Each structure stands twice: as C-alpha cells, then as structure tokens.
C-alpha cells in the first residue's frame, strides 16, 4: 500500500460496515487509507458487485471482493474480481505506469 501512495495514488477501501466498525478495523490492521462505509449498499449496486449469501436459510448481502483502478480523469482502467483482487501487484503496476504518462 505504501507503494501505491508513492505512485501518487490513493486507496479507498469500501464495505458495508459502519464507520465505527471500519475505524476499529483500520486501527487493528494499521491501515492509513480511508475505509468507506456503504451501509445502504448504494455504491455496491452502482458498481454491480452486491453478492447475496445464504447463511442458515437467511439471505444476507455484502460486497464481493473487487478492485477497480480509476485514473485521474475518472475512467476505470482495470477491474479485478475475487482471488486476483486480493493481490495488489497488478494495481500497483498500473498506478506506476499511469504516473509515468
């Protein structure tokens, strides 16, 4: 993540947790970037990544793990879903490339 900041990029984490839960999480894992709270699932729906999960016959919905790289013009440059979204290397590589332009 420090590598991303060095490229003049910012990371925004987004989940359905409350700001209070996100802050506790941020302190626990020591992240410095903002963790945003999408409690009403508005942004998840906008981005089409609201997953529905069935737990003990009750349905819950929360974010699917996805990473978007958005350039300074607001254009999406890269989308990574699920397993590949955990590894930040591709995002770092792209941000480094975007800065050199």
């Amino acid at each position, binding site marked *: 993540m420090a590598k991303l900041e060095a490229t003049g990029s910012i990371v*925004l984490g*987004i989940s359905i947790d409350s700001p209070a839960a996100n802050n506790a999480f941020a302190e626990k894992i020591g992240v410095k970037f903002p963790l945003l709270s999408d409690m009403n699932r508005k942004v998840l729906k906008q981005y089409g990544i609201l997953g529905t999960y069935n737990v003990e016959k009750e349905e819950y919905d929360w974010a699917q793990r996805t990473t978007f790289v958005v350039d300074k013009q607001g254009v999406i440059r890269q989308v990574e879903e699920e397993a590949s979204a955990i590894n930040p290397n591709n*995002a770092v590589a792209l941000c480094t490339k975007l800065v050199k332009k």
Partner: protein
Amino acid sequence: MPRPSLRATLPFLLFLTLVATSLASPQNIKITHTPLKAGDMAPDFALLDNHWNPVRLSDFRGKKNVVLAFYVLAFSEG
C-alpha cells in the same frame, strides 16, 4: 402451421419449469459480476469514511489515481 398439441408441448414446459426452479433454488453464494469494465467512467459516489467524514470519488478528479478496494466485511479474512 398447425398449433403444436398440448401433448407435444407439455414435456418442454416441464423442462422449463425444472430449469426455472433449479435457478431459483437457494445457494450459498450468488455471484454477480460487475458490468463495469476498463474504459468506462467510474460512477461517482459520496460515502462516510472511518472518521465520519464524507469522501467523494470526484474529490480526486485531476489529482490522484484511485484504487477502489471493495472488501467483504471488516474483521473477516476477506
């Protein structure tokens, strides 16, 4: 063209019903894929950060590249 008899269409209707019920049956996870792709404009949004400050995606327009990292839940391995 003669109308197909009920006898002929019934198996097909049954098949359709089976497909529909199997699709509707509860699964543990319903995966949806984002329709957004590289080259699309990122939809703008305003959300509260972990210090209760509003953050807009458009705040960074012309300033920084933004990595939007959607995660499952705080305190989970996701």
